[in-house]
């Protein structure tokens, strides 16, 4: 153990020396150039300092971004399984990935599902919490801290185990409390049956599109409303695993809430009051004043949330690690990248997966920026 630490500490010290040398070299070269161009001594000093201080990033950029990007672009066109050398295969990886790899298609569609249903759910809850917190209330700081807490804890796999425990279909807390509340207040049962039916039908339909096999959907549809004793099968069934992931996403919406809260506090009070004098009700004011003025915050949350959803890894890892049969129904693109690449050192294929992911994120972000003008208002 100590040896592993020492090894890394020695390398760290070496890295610091390396960075210092790079700084001096880069700064020195820049100063030489400045001298040659006839700048004053003072300016020469500043140019030296500028390059010397920026050198760590510039060197890191070349080593950890430029070189890997170029290398992975090449490797994505090769069959490369470590430790054997890469062999050029043209577009084979991409063709396999996009046309024949059903697991990748499943990962892509699952990620899409989480983006289309999970992200809006996350944003709506964040907005609702921010609106509640924006009232004149006591203890706002306390509530705010409570809602923000999952941002710290929400991606720690060890902490997420608490969710695995709570989502257990039989003994888990969530289903226990659902059973208990139905026992106390029986009319809730029909709501619960409808909820289960809606989730199962929609997920069966989605799985049908994903696999081209609609027998599950037919079965769920023909069964109709589930029996009165049924509970959600969060981590037990392919039809539920995505709902469980969305639950975890909604839980950690604290950052979005803060962004909304900041935007809400910037809305001038006079605007609301003027609308009220003109006879606008609370709903109209929300719809025509608050929401449009929040659109920059919504846009920011949407972009950041999109990128985070596309890159989700910890939640599916914790929920799927011990449930390989659910993997196809719940794994995300990054989870698949990890499984497909690092189990068999499939470098070429993994490089192709990461390029598809990168291009996808860029396309979606660009589309969002294109659409921005249509619905984001920076003033009323």
């Amino acid at each position: 153990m100590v040896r592993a630490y020492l090894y890394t500490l020695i390398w760290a010290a070496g890295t610091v020396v390396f960075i210092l040398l790079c700084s001096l070299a880069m700064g020195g070269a820049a100063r030489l150039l400045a001298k040659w161009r006839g700048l004053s001594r003072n300016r020469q000093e500043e140019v030296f300092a500028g390059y010397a201080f920026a050198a760590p990033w510039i060197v890191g950029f070349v080593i950890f971004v430029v070189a890997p990007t170029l290398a992975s672009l090449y490797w994505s066109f090769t069959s490369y399984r470590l430790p054997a050398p890469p062999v050029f295969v043209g577009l084979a990886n991409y063709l396999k990935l996009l046309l024949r790899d059903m697991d990748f298609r499943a990962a892509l569609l699952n990620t899409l599902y989480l983006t289309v249903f999970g992200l809006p759910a996350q944003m709506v809850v964040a907005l609702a919490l921010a609106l509640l917190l924006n009232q004149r209330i006591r203890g706002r700081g306390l509530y705010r801290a409570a809602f923000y807490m999952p941002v710290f804890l929400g991606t720690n796999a060890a902490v997420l185990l608490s969710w695995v425990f709570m989502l257990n279909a039989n003994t888990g807390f969530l289903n226990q409390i659902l059973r208990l509340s139905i026992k106390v207040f029986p009319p809730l049962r029909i709501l619960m049956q409808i909820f289960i039916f809606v989730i199962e039908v929609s997920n069966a339909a989605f799985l049908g599109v994903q696999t081209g096999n609609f027998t599950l959907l037919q079965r769920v549809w023909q069964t109709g409303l589930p029996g009165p004793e049924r509970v959600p099968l969060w981590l037990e069934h392919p039809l539920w695993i995505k709902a469980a992931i969305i639950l975890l996403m909604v839980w950690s919406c604290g950052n979005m809430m803060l962004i909304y809260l900041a935007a809400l506090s910037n809305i001038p009070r006079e605007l609301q009051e003027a609308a009220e004098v003109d006879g606008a009700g609370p709903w109209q004011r929300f719809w025509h004043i608050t929401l449009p003025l929040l659109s920059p915050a919504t846009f920011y949350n949407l972009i950041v949330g999109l990128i985070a959803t596309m890159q989700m890894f910890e939640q599916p890892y914790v929920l799927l690690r011990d449930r390989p049969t659910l993997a196809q129904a719940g794994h995300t693109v990054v989870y698949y990248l990890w499984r497909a690449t690092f189990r068999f050192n499939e470098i070429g294929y993994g490089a192709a997966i990461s390029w598809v992911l990168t291009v996808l994120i860029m396309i979606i972000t660009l589309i969002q920026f294109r659409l921005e003008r249509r619905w984001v208002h920076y003033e009323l």
Partner: protein
Amino acid sequence: MEVGAMVPSRPWASPAQRLRRVGIGLLYGALYFALSAGALATMFPLIWMILTSFKTFEEANAPQIVWLPSALRWEAYRAILSRPEFLRAFANSVFVTALAVGGTLASITVVAYAFSRLEWPGRDVVFILMLSTMMIPPQALIVPQYVFFNKLRWIGTYNPITIPGFFAGGAALVFLLRQFMRQIPKDLDEAARIDGASHWQIFWHIILPLCRPALATAAIFLFVAHWNSLLQPLIYLQTTSLYTLPIYVTSLVNPQQTVQPWPSIMAASFITALPLIVVFLLLQRHLIGGIVLSGMKG
């Protein structure tokens, strides 16, 4: 959107006004109820984790909810803390987080200084280049970096998850610090320059002490990111003795068993969460205040 903004409290209020005030009181009651319920639900995974860690195996896996442990039992903590693997994973997490946060923080501060307080040809181009790297998902670089670290024989060591940070990893945090440093008046440096101070001295004695709030924010973000980090350790730390807490604690769940030893797993989870909770409780006011003030920049 203020619920009670328009009602001045007057002792001579008419019955209609009084009725209205009762309505507003009810509205406030509903508001507090919704907020408290939401806060309770949000905190519940943590509360349940703590409660479970004090329960017996039977209480935790009972078919009917057992709300509270029948006694304050420390067995689960004693059991988990007597496991050398757990202690080692804890030490590993502390080592990795400390080294990575320290190295990253030092380098991003230096780089942010170059981007905010110094004039050098090419600065704006380099800065835009840096901002554009925020568009690249970190996962996209994982595969080629793995090959690179494999060539260096770094697989199975802590190097791949600590050393890259030394090169000012994390454009968003450099950006945050740069924005903060730009607000410091330029006269300070100029006066120091006239007094013969070098750029390094200005950075060390003037700018750095003024940046403490922003540095604290960056340090919190880095700490949370490295303490929670999962994908990179999974890829690079291929031996059990090197595992960090998130990997080790999730491996406590045994897929071969239908019933898990939840009290000890939850005790391990809670110990893992504890540093996060402490940092959060100490610094949340600073952090949340900063995000709310700076609005979108958070």
